[in-house]
C-alpha cells in the first residue's frame, strides 16, 4: 500500500448500526487488490461488486479481469484460475496497477499463479480450508506454503472460508453445494469491512439477484455479514483502511467496461444520425459482449444478427449499409482475417461501415482471453489491393464510448468503412465514466439522397463526390429514379459504371486514398503532456495510454525531461505528429506487440524511434515502462 497519510479513530462512514466498527482505521491514497480463485468461485462477480462500492465511495477506479480461456477447467487446477484486479485511489489513476497490495486467494492454484503479482510485504488473504493435500498437489506444491515458511515475506491471513461459511449457514437446510457457492460473499464481506465499503450495496444486489429464491437470498446476506463480522472480531485484522474520495471532475458517473462503452457509442451515434442501427457478429472472445449488449436495446430499434460465420456478419452489415442503415460488425483479430475480403468490398462500394476489432493475443487462436495490440498493421493494411480505410483506437474503457461514436461519425461523413480497435484489457476492464449529457453529443450529418431531383435532369451519379470529404452520396433505396448498382469491380468515378480502364483505375486508387487522408480534417492538434521539447517523447496508442501517463507523470515529478503524446487515429496519422516528434531527442513507442506503430512512425517521419514491447497477454507494467524510459534518458 502506498503512502500512509494518517491514522484515525473508528471511521464514521455512515455504516448502518449493524456494521459499526470499533477498530482503528488508517488512511491510504491508493490500493490495488486482486481476487483469484477457480472460474466457478464467483471471482469476477466479487471483483465487480467491490469495484462498484469503491466507485460509489468516490474513489477513482480501474480494473483488470484476468480469466482463463477454459470456462470451467477442473476445480483446483492452475488452468482454472480466474483473477480480478482492482486499483482504487483518492487521486486520478490510469491503470489497474502493476502489482497488488492485497491478494485474496480461494485455493492453492490461485496462490501459485498469482503470487508473482503480490507486492513485497503485501497482504495475502488465503482461504485456508482449500489448502488440502489434493488441492496442493494439483497446484504443484509439495508442502503447504501457508505452513512451510515460504511466505514469510508477506503478511499472511489465514481464513477458514469454507468452515466459517458453513457455520454461518447451519440449520438453514442448504445443500453442501449451495453452501459452497456462498463463500465468495464471505470473502466480499471481509474485504468490505477491511476497506470500509458500504455494505448496503451488496445487500441490495443480493436482494435483487435472489428475489425469487428467498432461502438463497437470506443465506448470502447472512454469509456476507458473517464475513464482515469476522473482520471486526478476529484478532488477525487489527486495523481497517480508508481510501478517501478522489478529486474527480464534477458530474454524473457510472462504471463502464470497454465493451459496454462501444455498444453505447454505437447506439448514441445511430440516434444522433437519425438512422437505424444494425449489428452483426459471430461469437468470439472477447467481443461477444457487444453483441449481447446490443441485442438488449430493442426499444432503440437495434437489429442484431448472430451470423453463421464472420464473413456473413460483415457481409450482412454491408447489405444493411446498402439499405441505408448504420451498420456495424464486431469481432476479434481472427474474425478480421476472415472479413478482410468483404471489408475491401465496403471500401470499393464506398459504404459506411464500422468494423470493431477487440484485439486479443494472436496469431491464430493465440490467447483468446488475454490482451494484445498486434492487429494494428492488419487493420491498416490487411487486405488485397490498395485498400485504405480510417483506423481509430480507444485508449481506455471510458474512451471507448467516444471512439465508437467517432468511428460511426467519420464512416457516415466520408462514406467509408472504419476499423475501431480496442483490446481485451479495455473490453473487460472497467473504470468510472462521466456520463455525457445526450444533448451535448454532436448531431451526425448523413449524406442520404432521397430525391431524384438531386441530380437534376442529368444521370444518377452514385460516385459524384463532395468537394471536402470526397464522399459519394448515399442513395436511398426505394426512391423512384435512383436505381443504381454497386459492386466490387472497379468503376468509373462519378457514374459508378464498371470500368477496366487503366487511367481510371489509377485515379480511383488515388481517390480512395485521398478520401481517407481527408479524415485528418477531423483531428484536433496532438496533445502533448509535458513540454513540447525534451529528452524523450513517449508515444502511445491504445491501452498502454494509462501506463504511459502514469510513468511520465512520475518521471516529470522527478524533474525528467519526458513528455507523452497519444494517437487516437492510427490511419491516417495526425497531420502535426511529425512536428511533435521533432521536438525530442528520443521517441519511445510502448506497444503490446512486436513493434507495429513504430514501423509506421519510422517509415512516415524517418525518426529513429525506439520500441518498448511486451507481449505477455497483460497490460504494460508501469514499473517496466518507467525503466525503459529511464534507459532512453541521458545518463
Amino acid at each position, binding site marked *: 500500500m502506498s503512502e500512509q497519510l494518517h491514522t484515525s479513530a473508528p471511521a464514521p462512514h455512515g455504516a448502518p448500526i449493524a456494521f459499526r466498527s470499533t477498530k482503528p482505521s488508517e488512511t491510504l491514497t491508493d490500493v490495488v487488490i486482486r481476487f483469484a480463485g477457480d472460474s466457478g468461485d464467483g471471482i469476477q462477480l466479487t471483483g465487480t461488486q467491490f469495484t*462498484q462500492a469503491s466507485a*460509489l465511495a*468516490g474513489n477513482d477506479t480501474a480494473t483488470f479481469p484476468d480469466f482463463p480461456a477454459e470456462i470451467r477447467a477442473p476445480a483446483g487446477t492452475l488452468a482454472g484460475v480466474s483473477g480480478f484486479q482492482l486499483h482504487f485511489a483518492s487521486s486520478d489513476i490510469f491503470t489497474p496497477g502493476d502489482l497488488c497490495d492485497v491478494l485474496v486467494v480461494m485455493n492453492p492454484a490461485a496462490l501459485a499463479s498469482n503470487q508473482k503479482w503480490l507486492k513485497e510485504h503485501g497482504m495475502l488473504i488465503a482461504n485456508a480450508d482449500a489448502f488440502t493435500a489434493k488441492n496442493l498437489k494439483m497446484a504443484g506444491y509439495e508442502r503447504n506454503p501457508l505452513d512451510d515458511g515460504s511466505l514469510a515475506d508477506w503478511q499472511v491471513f489465514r481464513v477458514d472460508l469454507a468452515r466459517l461459511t458453513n457455520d454461518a449457514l447451519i440449520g438453514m437446510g442448504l445443500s453442501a453445494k449451495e453452501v459452497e457457492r456462498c463463500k465468495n460473499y464471505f470473502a466480499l464481506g471481509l474485504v468490505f469491512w477491511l476497506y470500509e465499503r458500504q455494505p448496503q450495496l451488496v445487500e441490495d444486489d443480493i436482494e435483487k439477484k435472489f428475489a425469487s429464491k428467498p432461502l438463497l437470498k437470506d443465506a448470502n446476506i447472512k454469509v456476507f455479514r458473517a464475513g464482515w463480522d469476522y473482520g471486526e472480531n478476529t484478532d488477525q485484522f487489527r486495523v481497517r483502511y480508508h481510501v478517501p474520495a478522489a478529486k*474527480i471532475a*464534477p*458530474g*454524473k*458517473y*457510472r*462504471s463502464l467496461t470497454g465493451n*459496454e462503452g462501444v455498444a*453505447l457509442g454505437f*447506439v*448514441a451515434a445511430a440516434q444522433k444520425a437519425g438512422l437505424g442501427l*444494425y449489428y*452483426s457478429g459471430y461469437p468470439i472472445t472477447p467481443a461477444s459482449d457487444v453483441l449481447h449488449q446490443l441485442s438488449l*436495446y*430493442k*426499444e*432503440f*430499434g*437495434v*437489429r442484431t*444478427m448472430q*451470423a*453463421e*460465420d464472420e*464473413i*456473413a456478419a460483415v*457481409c*450482412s*452489415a*454491408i*447489405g*444493411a449499409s*446498402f*439499405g441505408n*442503415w448504420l*451498420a456495424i460488425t464486431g469481432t476479434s483479430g481472427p474474425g478480421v482475417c476472415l472479413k478482410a*475480403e*468483404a471489408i*475491401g*468490398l465496403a471500401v470499393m*462500394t464506398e459504404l459506411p461501415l464500422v468494423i470493431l476489432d477487440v484485439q486479443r493475443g494472436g496469431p491464430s487462436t493465440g490467447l483468446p482471453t488475454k490482451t494484445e495490440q498486434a492487429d494494428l498493421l492488419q487493420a491498416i493494411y490487411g487486405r488485397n489491393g490498395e485498400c485504405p480505410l480510417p483506423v481509430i483506437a480507444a485508449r481506455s474503457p471510458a474512451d471507448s464510448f467516444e471512439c465508437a461514436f467517432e468511428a460511426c461519425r467519420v464512416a457516415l461523413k466520408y462514406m467509408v468503412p472504419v476499423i475501431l480497435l480496442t483490446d481485451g484489457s479495455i473490453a473487460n476492464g472497467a473504470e468510472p465514466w462521466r*456520463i*455525457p*449529457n*445526450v444533448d451535448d453529443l454532436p448531431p451526425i450529418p448523413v449524406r442520404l439522397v432521397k430525391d431524384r431531383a438531386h441530380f437534376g435532369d442529368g444521370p444518377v451519379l452514385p460516385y459524384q463526390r463532395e468537394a471536402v470529404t470526397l464522399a459519394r452520396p448515399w442513395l436511398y*433505396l*426505394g426512391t*423512384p429514379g435512383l*436505381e*443504381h*448498382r*454497386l*459492386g*466490387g*469491380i472497379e468503376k468509373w468515378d462519378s457514374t459508378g*459504371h*464498371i470500368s477496366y480502364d487503366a487511367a481510371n483505375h489509377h485515379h480511383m486508387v488515388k481517390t480512395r486514398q485521398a478520401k481517407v487522408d481527408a479524415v485528418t480534417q477531423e483531428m484536433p492538434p496532438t496533445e502533448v503532456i509535458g513540454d513540447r521539447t525534451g529528452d524523450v517523447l513517449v508515444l502511445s496508442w491504445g491501452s498502454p495510454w494509462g501506463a504511459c501517463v502514469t510513468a511520465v507523470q512520475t518521471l516529470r515529478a522527478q524533474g525528467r525531461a519526458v513528455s507523452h503524446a497519444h494517437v487516437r487515429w492510427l490511419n491516417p496519422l495526425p497531420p502535426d505528429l511529425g512536428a511533435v516528434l521533432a521536438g525530442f531527442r528520443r521517441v519511445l513507442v510502448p506497444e503490446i506487440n512486436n513493434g507495429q506503430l513504430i514501423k509506421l512512425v519510422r517509415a512516415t517521419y524517418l525518426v529513429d524511434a525506439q520500441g518498448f514491447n511486451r507481449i505477455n497477454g497483460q497490460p504494460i507494467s508501469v514499473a517496466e515502462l518507467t525503466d525503459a524510459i529511464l534507459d532512453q534518458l541521458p545518463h
Partner: protein
Amino acid sequence: MSTLAPETAPIAYKAKDFSSDQDVRWCPGCGDYSILANVQRALAKQGVPPHQIATVAGIGCSSRFPYYMATYGFHGIHGRAPAIATGLKVVRPDLQVWMATGDGDSLSIGGNHFIHLFRRNVDIKVLLFNNRIYGLTKGQYSPTSELGKKTKSSPFGTVETPFRAVSLAIGAEASFVARCIDVDAKGSADVFAAAAAHVGTAFVEILQNCNIFNDGAWEHLAAKENRSDHTLMLEHGKPMVFGAARDKGIKLVGLRPTVVKIGADGVTEADLWVHDAHDEDPTRTFLLSRMEWPEFPVPIGLFRAVTRPVYDQLVNAQVEAVQRTKKPDLQRLLDGSKTWTVA
C-alpha cells in the same frame, strides 16, 4: 409485411422497364440471356415497381445479373450474396429482394451462407443458375459437375460426387423449392411468379447452358424433342404423368419412386403418386429431388411451398413488440443501472 403492393394504382410494366442501360456482356448464346428475359417478364407481370426491388449477387457469370436489371443492385463477393441480401432484407422489409447466384458461388464457396439462408427462411428469392461448370474462371469442374467429368482442372475426370442443389435446399429446411430450364419461357414464368409470391426464402434452380465450357449439359432435358419424355412437369394435386403420349407415370412403392406405364399391367392414373407441394414433411419432396435422368424423368416446376416463420419478419416483430412497451431513452441507457454524482 413483405407482401409488396404497388404504391399507387397498378402500373402496367413491360419487361424492358426492368432492363438497365448497361450492355449485357455474357457470351453470345449463353443461357443467361433467356433467364434475364424470363425474370424481367415475370417482374413486369408482378407489378412491383423497379425501385422497390433490389437484386443482389455474388461472383461468377450469373452474378453479373444485377448490372442488367433496372432495379437497385448489388454485386457482392464470391459466395456471400445470401449474407448481403439477409442484412438488406432485415433492415429494408419494404424492398423485394432477389438474389442471383451460380453452382460455384452458392454450392462451393458460399455453401455455408446458402444453407443458413434456408434455415432462417429470409424473404429472398434465390435464382441459382446451375450450368455444372465454372464459367468465368474458364472451365473448372463445379460442385454439380458429374463424377468423372473431364475439365481443365480434372483432366482425368473428377473424383467428386456432385451436390443435388434441390436436395441440399430441402435438407437445409427450404420452405420453397422449384426448378426450371433456361430456355423454357413458360415453365420459368410459372416458377418465378410462384417464387415472387412466396413469403420466405424461395429457391429456384435454373438449369442453364454454358455454351462455351459445358455446352449441352442439360440438352437431354432442354431440347424440345426430349422434354416430354425426360422431364416430369410437377403439378400440385395432380398425379405424376409424363411422356409425349402422357402414357408414363411415377408410382410410389413404399418410399421408392417407380416409373410405370399407364395401361400396362392394370396400372391406371389412380395408382400414381400425387404431387403435394404443400406437404409439411419434406420426406417425399426429397425423394423427388433424387430423381435423375436416365433412370427417371427429371422433375421440373414447384417441388415445395410451405409456410413457416420468416426470419426478417420475426426480427422486426421482436423489435416492434419491445417498442410498444418501452420508449427509447438514450440518456437513461447511457446512465445504466447505477450512477453516482460527484459535486
